[in-house]
């Protein structure tokens, strides 16, 4: 239908609850604004070819704007430029493009900051013991996608560990790091990775995880050897099950992000743009619109701002 | 009265009969409204050129292929075999030209393929356990009957046997289980002189037990030695049926290659 406004949502995958929520947020906002929403997703994380094809389809389809969580922040730029040249508004959600101004606007969580918050919290919680902590790093994939690198490096920075090359994980020399292993961001991978690192050093007492499913898997591994109560697990996302896991003591703290809000804001921006060409504005002092990140925990520490599990439950998924 | 006379005056009925059988493979018509009769207790030889449709005929009557048209009758009753299993249930055993053995399995496994014997009692009924000793014993007995005593180990894989031994196992299987009809498609093609002779002896032995046999062969001396009647196949049809006592091998070859007009 030619008269209605069409918007596209392109996520990295749609097998991750985070993106499912983002889509739900977009659908709700689109329904409210009377916009037709088309959603697309790659098959696996890192599958930017499918995202390029999706952008092309949106151009062909005469959409007014695209909301994009890029699987590869540089590779997608060509297709994004093509879309903008064709008159579409392109908004990067969750993951900034490289360069960030390749998109008309960016509504994102600061993933590095998200990592930094849990790192600071873990260090503060351990207090003096942080100096001889034994840390397991449960990352996303051997291909080291950017979210994974940003959170990992943010965590280490927050914990007070020297980063080496901040664009990749695994090159740190600090002896407190027992090792890195990959989880594919799910429970199964989380459990196996945790077991592997426990076999390397059974005394691990801090576990960084890329997201909450991986954290839940790691917890199962610890539980099977009876160590679930003397290890600190931190994670990112703050999804509703994740926050519940904090209440249940599975996770110590998590950095909460707000995919529903990102998507809703994105749809509103497209609606405004379609109406009169207004472009969205950035958060003052940043080169993107920060949708915010909050540390959720019931054991707040000094010097790190946080919200309680009750608040987190209220806000989960945004 | 001879078999031919009995047939002529209609005093005996065919045990296995085909009428108007048609089988097409793409554009090739392998069977072209072919008739076929096998009488009780006889050895019926089927001869014909390469590609005349002999194998297609016996496949059609033994359930290995379903004919496009036509009917098959067993003991006068129409039957519709859709797989060799159906035909076997009725007591028709076939040794196909391609032998139909599973190379990696043992001789005993192959002989009992599709009709395995299970242990008696609980283990057979509930655990469905095979009675290997029994199957091996029977297999050994059948092979000895055929003079294939040289097979050392009944559990040896069929692929480790020579071509002749394999033929022997296939023929022994058919002879052991065929209760109504035994069909042999070129059973001696790959065999040496000695091995061929054993198969011929077995064929005569089976007939003496009263079981009729269909024998497809290109070896005229063998055919004329053992057959009671000879079905001459040409261009997908039965050209004629001759009595080996009334015609010479030269006649048979002339009919089958089209050099001479067929009788009747």
């Amino acid at each position, binding site marked *: 239908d030619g008269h209605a406004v069409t918007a596209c949502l392109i996520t990295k995958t749609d097998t991750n609850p985070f993106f499912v929520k983002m889509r739900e947020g977009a659908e709700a906002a689109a329904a409210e604004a009377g916009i037709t929403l088309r959603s697309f997703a790659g098959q696996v994380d890192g599958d930017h070819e499918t995202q390029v094809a999706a952008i092309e389809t949106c151009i062909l389809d005469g959409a007014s704007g695209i909301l994009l969580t890029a699987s590869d922040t540089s590779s997608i730029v060509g297709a994004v430029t093509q879309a903008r040249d064709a008159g579409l508004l392109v908004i990067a959600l969750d993951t900034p493009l490289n360069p960030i101004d390749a998109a008309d606007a960016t509504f994102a969580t600061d993933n590095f900051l998200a990592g930094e918050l849990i790192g600071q919290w873990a260090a503060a919680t351990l207090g003096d013991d942080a100096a001889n902590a034994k840390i397991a790093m449960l990352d996303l994939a051997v291909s080291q996608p950017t979210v994974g690198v940003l959170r990992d490096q943010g965590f280490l920075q927050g914990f007070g560990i020297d980063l080496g090359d901040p664009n990749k994980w695994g090159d740190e020399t600090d002896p407190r790091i027992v090792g890195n292993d990959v989880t594919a961001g799910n429970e199964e991978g989380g459990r196996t990775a945790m077991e592997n690192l426990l076999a390397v050093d059974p005394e691990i007492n801090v576990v960084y995880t890329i997201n909450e499913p991986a954290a839940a898997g790691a917890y199962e591994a610890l539980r099977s050897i009876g160590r679930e109560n003397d290890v600190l697990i931190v994670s990112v996302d703050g999804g509703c099950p994740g926050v519940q896991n904090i209440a249940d003591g599975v996770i110590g703290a998590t950095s909460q992000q707000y995919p529903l809000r990102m998507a809703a804001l994105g749809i509103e921006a497209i609606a405004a743009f379609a109406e009169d060409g207004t472009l969205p504005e950035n958060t003052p002092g940043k080169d993107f619109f920060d949708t915010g990140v909050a540390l959720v925990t019931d054991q707040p520490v000094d010097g790190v701002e946080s919200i309680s599990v009750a608040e987190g439950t209220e806000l989960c998924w945004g | 009265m001879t078999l031919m006379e009995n047939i002529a005056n209609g005093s005996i009925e065919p045990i296995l009969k085909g009428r108007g059988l048609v089988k097409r493979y793409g554009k090739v018509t392998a069977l072209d409204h072919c008739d076929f009769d096998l009488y009780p207790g006889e050895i019926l030889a089927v001869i014909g050129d390469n590609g005349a449709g002999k194998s297609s005929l016996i496949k059609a009557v033994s359930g290995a292929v379903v004919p496009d048209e036509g009917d098959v009758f067993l003991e006068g009753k129409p039957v519709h075999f859709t797989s060799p*299993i159906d035909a076997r249930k009725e007591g028709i055993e076939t040794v196909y030209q391609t032998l*139909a053995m*599973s190379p990696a399995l043992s001789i005993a496994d192959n002989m009992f*393929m599709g009709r395995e014997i299970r242990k008696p009692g609980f283990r057979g009924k509930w*655990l469905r*356990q095979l009675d290997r000793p029994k199957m091996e014993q029977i297999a050994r007995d059948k092979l000895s009957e055929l003079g294939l005593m*040289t097979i050392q180990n009944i559990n040896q894989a069929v692929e480790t046997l020579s071509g002749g031994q394999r033929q022997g196992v296939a023929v022994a299987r058919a002879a052991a289980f065929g209760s109504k009809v035994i069909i042999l498609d070129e059973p001696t093609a790959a065999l040496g002189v*000695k091995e061929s002779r054993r198969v011929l002896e077995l064929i005569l032995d089976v007939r003496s037990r009263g079981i009729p046999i269909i024998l497809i062969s290109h070896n005229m001396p063998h055919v004329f030695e053992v057959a009671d009647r000879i079905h001459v196949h040409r261009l997908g049809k039965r050209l004629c049926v001759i009595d080996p006592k009334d015609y010479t091998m030269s006649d048979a070859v002339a009919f089958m290659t089209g050099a001479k007009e067929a009788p009747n």
Partner: protein
Amino acid sequence: MSGNADDYEAAIKPSAADEVASFSERKGFLARLQHALHVNPALVPLFVLVVSICLFALLLGSRFLSPFALTLILQQVQIVGIVAAAQSLVILTAGIDLSVGAIAVLSSVIMGQFTFRYGVPVEIAVALGLAFGTVVGSINGWLVAVMKLPPFIVTLGMWQIVLAANFLYSANETIRAQDIEENAPLLQFLGTTFKVGADADGRGGATFTFGVIAMVVIFAFLAYALKHTAWGRHIYAVGDDPDAAQLSGVNVKRTLISVYAVTGFICAIAGWALIGRIGSVSPTSGQLLNIESITAVVIGGISLFGGRGSIMGPLFGALIVGVFTLGLRLAGADAQWTFLLIGALIIGAVAVDQWIRKVSA
């Protein structure tokens, strides 16, 4: 004799005690080892497994050669092991099943969602999950056996269909371990652990789970069925040469359908075991199970062309990969290097197998 047949055939020695070609012995330790394994090829993967355990034991000492580490490997391979058992059946029939992982995961999601979303009693939900796996397997089997489509394509298509259905149906929602523990512990049944020789705090020692037991039982059961039942013999016959099997009286269609159905059923058990292992029901698990199970099967010495190989091989195949993965991690290889070395291992293990099988050697 009739006609003008010759009598030269009468010259055959009447009671010839047929002689057989002579044997000849070869020498050398390696040659003899190779020969011994050649005679019993099912032992090859076991041999490779033992050698790799010894290797890592030498390299890593008691860190690797502890009851804890060794049973940890068992736990880590249980899911792949169970699926590899199912995959073996299909590969023995000269097929391949790419949908195993998807079936396992959707079965586990069904068990979870029926319990939590629809409030079905958990026993029934588990039964429904197992039934679901069996049905999908049967559809695969029907397409392969009756429609005569290539297994690779059927199961490739089914993989995508089941996986997409999985995400659509589950709405990508995880059911948390804590909720399951409280309301439907039966779902985690196969995750139940018991320890042998742990210290007072329950640490260290050999740790087994019911899932590991299930894996071993499934292998034992299939080994029995393949060797001692007609069904098993028919599977080998169909894989060896389906036309020959058909002609010699095997119901090829029924055999194939039953194989894929049993495979689907076993995959559903793997899905159940998955819940036990990860505690929760997660629709994103098991994505690599197809490749991992095929790898285990092939390292285990079952030919991708069907009809040859012993079912115990894939168990050892899965364990070999598990030993290498954990061994390399303990030896300090990082995730990327481990990935690379496992690739090399796969080629190496099959090369050893090939060397041992070399007929003329």
